[in-house]
């Protein structure tokens, strides 16, 4: 065993550079793998930990309740439902509220609670995370903490159509109502401010009901049932709800994207490391054929020699993996703070043994398997043959580029000869470049569709956007429409209001009602079929349809306001608003179930119109008839800002990582080539080839494989990136992606990748300078 260890150590010492490069690749893979495992295994679990710690609810409902009738009804209903384990209801104020946030505008349905109430609720309690010395003002969910919204700073809030100003007293953690990504956002007010708001009457009195279930998987069904029961009993009351499934997924979209990208990168880097290790072993066997023959001749068995390589590479891999996982802990605080800013839920970093063990097992197992696979050739080495001549590293039976006939310039022709004789190198280069092509295309896709212009991303995630959204009382609708028709600033206005309906036996569907779907800005919302046209038609979320085995042409029942009607599915939608539980109905279609009490209109304005000024004018003109005006662009900008930041970081990180990977892979290949061809370089130098010519030849010899695999990789990846992204976002309800393929970015990045590879290969080949023809004469 000691002898085998010594052989392994000697091998590593002789190839220090290669050893370091392999260690770095495995280290990066281990780091990403451990980060991914920590994010995916523990980050989501953190939500459940807080959910338990704060005894958070599985379903939350807020309903207008001026006289306490709803509260009474809820108590009766919940007492008689055997799915309910415990519940809590409290008086609150609720209203759509907006304030400046993240360079845009946060616009959401907010529940205002008295601080003391929020902190002492037996179900759905909130906890203060940060608090200043101010005793009178507002407490906001952690997610809003930013430079603008900080302790002691004033914050101006538009509650309905009124504006109030508070001092930020602190930040809190509320599991089910602590984000703008869910149906409801909780806002705590100090006792005096709550009383003041109550007196002002800007937000109506409501009941906030938080329900814990025995079986949390029932949450969506329960939500549908309870809302159906309430709307049946109190048809015209405003009601907003949250459920565990929706909230737990919505708050972790960023984490899901981040960990998804990390896992993909981890496995890509691991794949490249494995290819490099395999190529290294095959090359080692060829170069050391005589030594291996000699070792066999003195009695070493093939198994022992293979074990030596296993010892060498597995030892390296495990060492690198340990360092990599340790490094992941150094990197985790930065990722954690980025994630907390997006989930709004605190996460305490601690050592997690399971991800480390899994990382070590994956890396160790993969490396051991590849070493075994690549080193099996040792079994075929017969000592006598190996000692006589070694085994030819190349088969020179065919002269593929005869200099006599080729029209290529000398250096290029010699480079091409090297290319054609290095199949293993070419395979390694091709796999690396194919993987990096995917990275480049993904980066391009995210840059073009998220970072530079978010519209395609928003079309996919949000569905429909416009410039302004104005919500008016139903009785003012006609006057409002007349005004919109004559206002020269308005390009088009269409009804676009969301109402919850229920699919009996299924779930609640967040349904958008539109008077004319031909007016919508994003026709891609429909994935299969078409928008509903007639009153008996509905379009539903593709994800939900798949879950329920429904498709275009099927008939489903829809319930709202205590009425049930049949609808024909005209199309399938893909919007992530409600994780695929969406629906589209025409106005006449919805009116079969009830009347729309609060109508929201999406308005497209003429180019250059000031959206805020337009909204202010409408508000002034219609006064109390206008419930809310939303600058959609600003709201979307605020909500999507986190994605832009996240994507920018991801794109920069993976591009930097790609450059590092190319550098290391090329380093390994160039080093191996220089070692193998040292004699040839010496001969060529003695003939009069300059270092520059040989560097050029070496770098050029990698280029055919690099260029071909990059071009092929970029083309293939461009074709498959949309389906791949759809697969990646499948859990959010996305079935088909129609992101713009950034041809210019991909072309420029592809050329950049090729030039970078060429430059790195040239730089690494400069070692040729040290090869002197004299070395030949000294017996190499």
């Amino acid at each position: 065993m000691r002898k085998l260890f010594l052989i392994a150590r000697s091998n590593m010492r002789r190839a220090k550079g290669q050893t370091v490069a392999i260690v770095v690749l495995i280290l990066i893979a281990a780091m990403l793998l451990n980060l991914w495992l920590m994010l995916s295994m523990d980050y989501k679990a953190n939500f459940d930990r807080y959910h338990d710690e704060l005894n958070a609810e599985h379903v939350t409902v807020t309903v207008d309740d001026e006289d306490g009738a709803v509260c009474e009804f809820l108590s009766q209903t919940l007492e008689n439902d055997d799915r309910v384990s415990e519940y809590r209801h409290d008086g609150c104020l609720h209203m759509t509220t907006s304030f400046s946030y993240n360079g845009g505008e946060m616009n959401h349905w907010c529940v205002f609670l008295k601080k003391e109430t929020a902190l002492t609720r037996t179900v759905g309690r909130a906890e203060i995370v940060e608090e200043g010395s101010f005793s009178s003002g507002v407490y906001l969910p952690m997610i809003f903490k930013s430079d603008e919204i900080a302790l002691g700073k004033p914050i101006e809030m538009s509650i309905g159509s009124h504006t109030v100003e508070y001092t930020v007293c602190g930040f809190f953690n509320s599991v089910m109502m602590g984000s703008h990504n869910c149906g409801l956002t909780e806002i705590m007010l100090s006792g005096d401010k709550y009383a003041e708001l109550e007196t002002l009457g800007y937000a109506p009195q409501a009941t906030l009901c938080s329900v814990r279930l025995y079986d949390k998987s029932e949450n969506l069904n329960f939500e549908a049932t309870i809302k159906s029961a309430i709307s049946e009993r109190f048809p015209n009351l405003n009601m907003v709800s949250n459920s565990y499934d929706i909230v737990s997924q919505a708050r972790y979209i960023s984490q899901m994207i981040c960990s998804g990208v990390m896992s993909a990168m981890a496995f890509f880097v691991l794949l490249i490391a494995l290819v490099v290790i395999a190529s290294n072993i095959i090359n080692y066997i060829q170069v050391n054929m005589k030594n291996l023959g000699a070792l066999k001749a003195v009695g070493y068995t093939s198994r022992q020699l293979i074990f030596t390589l296993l010892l060498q590479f597995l030892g390296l891999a495990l060492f690198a993996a340990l360092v990599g996982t340790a490094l992941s802990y150094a990197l985790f605080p930065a990722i954690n703070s980025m994630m907390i800013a997006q989930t709004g839920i605190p996460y305490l970093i601690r050592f997690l043994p399971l991800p480390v063990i899994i990382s070590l097992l994956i890396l160790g197992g993969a490396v051991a398997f590849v070493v075994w696979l690549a080193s099996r050739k040792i079994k075929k080495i017969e000592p006598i043959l190996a000692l006589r001549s070694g085994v030819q590293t190349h088969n020179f039976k065919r002269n593929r580029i005869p200099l006599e006939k080729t029209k290529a310039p000398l250096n290029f022709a010699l480079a091409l000869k090297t290319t054609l004789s290095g199949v293993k190198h070419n395979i390694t280069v091709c796999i690396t470049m194919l993987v990096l092509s995917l990275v480049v295309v993904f980066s391009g896709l995210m840059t073009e569709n998220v970072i530079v212009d978010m519209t395609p991303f928003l079309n996919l995630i949000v569905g429909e956007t416009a410039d302004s959204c104005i919500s008016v009382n139903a009785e003012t609708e006609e006057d409002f429409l007349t005004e919109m028709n004559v206002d020269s600033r308005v390009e088009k206005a269409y009804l676009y209001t969301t109402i919850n309906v229920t699919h009996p036996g299924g779930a609640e569907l967040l349904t958008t009602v539109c008077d004319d779907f031909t007016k919508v800005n994003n026709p891609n919302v429909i994935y299969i079929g078409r928008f509903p046209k007639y009153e008996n038609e509905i379009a539903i979320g593709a994800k939900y349809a798949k879950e329920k085995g429904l498709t275009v042409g099927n008939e489903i029942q829809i319930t709202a306001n205590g009425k049930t009607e049949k609808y024909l599915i005209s199309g399938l939608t893909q919007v992530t608003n409600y994780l695929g539980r969406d629906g589209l109905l025409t106005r006449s279609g919805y009116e079969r179930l009830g009347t729309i009490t609060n109508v929201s209109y999406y308005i497209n304005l003429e180019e250059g119109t000031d959206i805020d000024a337009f909204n202010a004018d409408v508000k002034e003109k219609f006064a109390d008839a206008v419930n809310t005006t939303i600058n959609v662009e600003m709201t979307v900008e605020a909500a999507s800002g986190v994605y832009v930041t996240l994507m920018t970081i991801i794109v920069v990180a993976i591009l930097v990582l790609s450059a590092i990977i190319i550098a290391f892979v090329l380093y390994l290949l160039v080093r191996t080539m220089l070692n193998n061809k040292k004699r040839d370089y010496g001969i060529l130098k003695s003939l009069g080839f300059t270092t520059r010519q040989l560097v050029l030849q070496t770098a050029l010899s990698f280029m055919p494989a690099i260029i071909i695999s990059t071009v092929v990789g970029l083309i293939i990846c461009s074709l498959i990136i949309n389906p791949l992204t759809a697969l990646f976002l499948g859990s959010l309800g996305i079935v088909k992606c129609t992101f713009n393929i950034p041809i210019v970015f991909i072309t420029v990045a592809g050329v950049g990748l090729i030039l970078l590879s060429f430059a790195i290969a040239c730089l690494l080949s400069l070692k040729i300078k040290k090869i002197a023809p004299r070395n030949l004469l000294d017996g190499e």
Partner: protein
Amino acid sequence: MQKTLLKTEKLCKTFSNGGQQQHVLKNIDLELYQGDFTVIMGASGAGKSTLLYALSGMDTPSLGKITFGDKTISDLSQDGLAVFRRDHCGFVFQQIYLIDGMSVMDNVLSAGLLVNKDKKALVARAKELFAAVDISEETQKKFPTQISGGEAQRVGIVRAIINSPEILFADEPTGALNSKTGLDVLDTLTKFNEQGQSVVMVTHDMRSARRGNRILYLKDGVILGECNLGKYAHGDTARHEKLSAFLKEMGW
């Protein structure tokens, strides 16, 4: 009056080995003339090969000056020396050193195309030279591992002279060959010398040394003596005796 091709002044070469300095060449003043077949002889460790590498620009001297025509080559950079070798020198190695990954023809053309861009003329010259050293068309297509040692060395000679160098350097060209093939190689060198090719050859073999017209004897890094044998002629026994006497005098 013969034209001087290469000239050295106070040429020194010192190697450092484990902190100890080893003076291999000591103040050598030497002139090499056009058309000569100069043979450098000496015992092992005398510095023959070191002198050859320095003269051919394969290595740089520690001190002193080497001039080729009016160009000082001892001051050139590594790439400058490569260009010097490319434009003016040919080299035949003891271990032959053909590139295994290239066919026989490609080994020669890779050197030729460095200087001569007229591929057609170059291929014609290569074929002419191959014919002169008795390398068949079939052999030209083979790879170095598929031909004999003698054939390989003759290919090495063709490669060395494909660019018509002013000087052909040969380091023990028959050292790795058997008697018969060694003789073929010497005949080839002699033939080219008779056609005007200047040759500088290092050897410790008397049979090889007889081919030269000028014999230099190197001992402990200095040129101990010089003997002029005149142009080689087959069966010239007096030549052999003269060389034997010279070497005896040198302490061979």
